[in-house]
């Protein structure tokens, strides 16, 4: 990015000095991202409908344009021309602002993602926390939408959605803390740099799984999609929205899904890195383009996985969801965090720059030792969790079995 | 950063504090009172961080203090709102003036 700034300064446009050139370049990049994110919606909706159709053994849209590629444009035209109905006693201001706020939160998340070596919107040293904060803003938008519609179903849908979102925010934040502990910094750029040895998906697979699952729940995609639940509570919190506002809510959901794929790719799969090639060392234009392409490949892989999940798994019930979140994921993530922190302390290379850190006792084994130890810890914690859960399930099953097979006492049908 | 003198920050914090106190004294609904108390706590935090930045930027104790205040505010909001909900469930109203069964 510095190269582009220098080029702009060398053009000698009046009033353009170095800082103004930097500002202009940043604005253009921001405009590209802010437009590309919803524009990616077009590709995403087409992909989604085709993939789910193929999983369900049918063809999907193939009338509008070759292979149905113009279907999204047809949908957009339909949405623009739909009547914009506002319910009678709805709270006008809040009703109108809520979809915009949701879209705003989803697009703002792209500010901290490093797209290529040297190309990040901003190098905040608290980038990971920024993601969490923006997620909270999206939750607020759902609450506003549910309340302002003056509709019992919308309110109920909003309650369930926010309960689920708050539950799954905790494992997500804990896995982010794990990534920060292993990378040694909360800045996304530093996290990508720290993965130049080994990607975090290899050294912390369980953390990756938990982050991805919680992220899918945060976005509200199937199988966690009781947020929309088209067959249950009409349409959840966006029951009363039609036309453009509904379009904006849809855009917010797809952009959020896109953003989650970007986060997973950057935090666990090394971002713009390619295995065995040092992308940052390549000459300037190639590094950026190659990095961006590799990142997009990873992102679309995760998008495909999310659509695959949607086409395959049935929806979870709200109480199952909350039980799974609070009683399984939260304790699992906490124990995993303690394990990861312990391993990192053991393997920490000492440093005397800035705040002095004493070297850990096993730091002689270096990076490969740390990777192996993290992997072993992850698998051990997962194994422990599965053992605990299966023994608990066995106890519950045997209790139910005993209740069913009891002859004397007038026992009702076995509950669980 | 010195383009904004310290007294401006303290004045804004004082304004926020006064508005919060006014809200705590004059709102009918218990939740409204809780919201005003959050404003007061935010004003205190602004003061703490402004003092940290202007008077002792090398000593991180200012931010430590502010983070402890945020945490305590969170705990207090949680318990306060649980109380309000429990009261609403029993008495059917969250208006503070109507909760007077202890009055003579």
């Amino acid at each position, binding site marked *: 990015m510095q190269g582009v700034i220098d080029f702009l300064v060398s053009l000698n446009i009046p*009033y353009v000095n170095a800082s*103004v050139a930097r500002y202009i370049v940043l604005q253009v990049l921001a405009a590209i991202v802010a437009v590309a994110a919803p524009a990616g919606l077009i590709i995403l909706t087409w992909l989604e409908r085709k993939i789910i159709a193929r999983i369900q053994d049918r063809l999907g849209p193939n009338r509008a344009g070759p292979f149905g590629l113009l279907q999204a444009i047809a949908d957009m035209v339909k949405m623009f021309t739909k009547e914009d109905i506002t319910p009678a006693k709805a709270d006008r201001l*809040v009703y109108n602002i809520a979809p915009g706020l949701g879209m705003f939160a989803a697009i703002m998340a792209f500010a901290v993602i490093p797209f290529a070596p040297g190309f990040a919107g901003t190098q905040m*040293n608290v980038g990971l926390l920024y993601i969490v904060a923006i997620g909270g803003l999206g939750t*607020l938008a759902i609450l506003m939408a549910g309340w302002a519609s003056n509709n019992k179903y919308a309110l109920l849908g909003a309650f369930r959605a926010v309960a689920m979102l708050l539950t799954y925010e905790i494992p997500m934040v804990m896995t982010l803390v794990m990534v920060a502990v292993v990378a040694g910094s909360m800045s996304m750029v530093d996290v990508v740099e720290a993965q130049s040895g080994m990607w975090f998906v290899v050294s912390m697979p369980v953390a990756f799984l938990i982050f991805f699952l919680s992220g899918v729940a945060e976005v509200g995609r199937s199988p966690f999609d009781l947020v929309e639940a088209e067959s249950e509570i009409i349409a959840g919190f966006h029951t009363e929205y039609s036309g453009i506002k509904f379009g904006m809510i849809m855009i917010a959901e797809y952009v959020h899904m896109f953003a989650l794929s970007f986060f997973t790719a950057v935090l666990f799969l090394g971002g713009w890195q390619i295995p065995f090639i040092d992308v940052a060392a390549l000459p300037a234009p190639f590094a950026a383009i190659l990095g961006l392409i590799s990142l997009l490949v990873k992102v679309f892989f995760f998008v495909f996985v999310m659509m695959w999940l949607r086409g395959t798994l049935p929806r979870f019930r709200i109480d199952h969801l909350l039980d799974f979140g609070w009683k399984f994921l939260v304790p699992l993530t906490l124990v995993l965090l303690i394990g990861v922190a312990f391993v990192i302390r053991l393997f920490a290379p000492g440093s005397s720059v800035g705040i002095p850190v004493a070297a850990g006792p096993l730091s002689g084994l270096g990076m490969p030792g740390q990777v192996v130890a993290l992997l072993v810890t992850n698998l051990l914690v997962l194994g422990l969790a599965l053992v605990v859960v299966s023994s608990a399930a066995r106890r519950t099953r045997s209790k139910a079995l005993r209740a069913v097979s009891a002859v004397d006492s007038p026992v009702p049908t076995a509950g669980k | 950063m010195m383009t904004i003198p310290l007294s401006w920050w303290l004045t804004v914090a004082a304004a926020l504090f006064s508005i919060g106190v006014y809200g705590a004294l004059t709102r*009918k*609904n218990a939740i409204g009172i809780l919201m005003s108390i959050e404003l007061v706590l935010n004003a205190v935090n602004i003061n703490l961080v402004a003092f940290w930045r202007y008077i002792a930027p090398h000593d991180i104790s200012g931010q*430590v203090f502010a983070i402890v205040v945020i945490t305590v505010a969170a705990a207090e909001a949680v318990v306060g709102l649980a109380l309000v909900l429990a009261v609403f469930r029993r008495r059917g109203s969250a208006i503070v003036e109507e909760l007077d069964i202890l009055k003579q």
Partner: protein
Amino acid sequence: MFMPSNFDPSQIPLVPIVFWIMTLFTVGGAIGVVSSKKLFHSGLYLVLSFFGVAGYYVLLSAGFMAVVQLMVYVGAIAILILFAVMFSRRPMAAESQANRQWWLGLPLMLVLFVVLVVTVGSVAWPVSGAEPTADTVQQLGVAFLGSYLIPFEVVSVLLSVALIGAIILARGKVEGEETN
């Protein structure tokens, strides 16, 4: 054209402009909280005020505090307050939210504000022109696990107690239990 030839766009004083915008958010939001007729709108004005305060923290070079403010206040406390509002209101009622003593509270607030401003303005604060170092997050970590370890642990216990207490308070009647 209509700008002097020595106009340098990088010299536009951004900091005071941002300060005034954030003040508008904060103080405007606060006034909205205490004077709005609908409780839900008060909650939303409170969120606006929190955003303003987060902007203040960024201006004061406390970036970590700004993000923590957004995460804790907007992402948790504000949502909790809005939940409580939604659970406990007859929906959409728009009666006035001020109690019978509001005419007394207004001059009290003004007196308090004037006293605070005069007191604060009359002190010669020992302002040091130093800049904070860039690694505040690391310093915070060292402080919390070093010299401020006991407050850290006490605050954790406080949060656990608040969590358990809130669950018990808000649980209501559970079948099969007796209340005494």
